[in-house]
């Protein structure tokens, strides 16, 4: 489906969505699905669940676009990160934690088998250790290491100030360094 209004910013599109415009909603979805899927996947480590979370988040926005209030002086993406994070956390509370998928595609096919196996193991352990972090530290880590999201945006999405966010990141990384010292 071609993007009808690629030149419009998110807030203009949201105003149109609030008046029931399907093409504006379609543009918004096409623009942001990939980045919110990445975030959801980092939380859930499951493709289907992450896709469902993103779909639920966008459908909630479509169903009741009045939830988004432009006068709050927040970027749409910052606000929507929070929506997706909350959905992911709710989902995790309802379900038991998923086993990390050990058959995920490899990042670099040129690596030797040994390197690949080692890297795969590192990634698996890293995901397990991240999943074991306290909720706020995990959220800070997931948001800050997402490309295209500044630390300030991540702090806004979490509703904390920049210093608090940096402190959460520091604590998370200290814990990870300790738990993963055999791999660093």
């Amino acid at each position, binding site marked *: *489906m071609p993007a009808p209004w690629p030149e419009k910013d998110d807030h203009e599109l949201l105003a149109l969505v609030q008046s*029931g415009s*399907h093409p504006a*909603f*379609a543009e918004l*979805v*096409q623009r942001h*699905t*990939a980045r919110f*899927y*990445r975030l959801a*996947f*980092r939380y859930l480590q499951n*493709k289907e669940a*992450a*896709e469902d979370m*993103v*779909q639920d988040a*966008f*459908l909630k926005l*479509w*169903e*009741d*676009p*009045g939830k988004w209030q432009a006068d709050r002086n927040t970027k749409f993406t910052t606000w929507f990160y929070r929506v997706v994070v909350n959905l992911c956390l709710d989902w995790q509370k309802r379900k038991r934690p998923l086993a990390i*998928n050990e058959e*995920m*595609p490899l*990042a670099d096919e040129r690596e030797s088998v040994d390197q690949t196996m080692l890297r795969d193991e*590192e*990634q698996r352990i*890293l*995901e397990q250790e991240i999943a074991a972090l306290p909720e706020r530290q995990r959220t800070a*880590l997931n948001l800050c*290491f997402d490309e295209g999201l500044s630390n300030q945006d991540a702090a806004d999405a979490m509703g904390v100030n920049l210093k608090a966010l940096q402190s959460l990141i520091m604590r998370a*990384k200290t814990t*990870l*360094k300790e738990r*993963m*010292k055999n*791999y*660093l």
Partner: protein
Amino acid sequence: MSENQDEKLDQMLRSRRIEPAHRDLAARIILKAQTVPQVQNLSLWQAVRQLFAEFHLPQPGYVLATALVLGMMLGFSTAPDNAQMSDAGSVTAQSYIASDEELL
């Protein structure tokens, strides 16, 4: 050593593997939204206006003329029956009066 660890950890965090989503994820969401109605948060005034709009007549002239014609047709068709009923009623009343007078 610690700096190396920091760098390695940062590198690992940045290169976390993400299984790509289905290509049609966005299209699926857009399609699904077309079957979902939007919630409308109306103010009291908007709700009242919407209620009145339900009774809006697109062509009141035609509606009025049709109602008049139908009313006249119904009136003409039922008028003779009413006359008969009222005659019958008056006869009955007279018989009552007469029977009362006989008693006196």
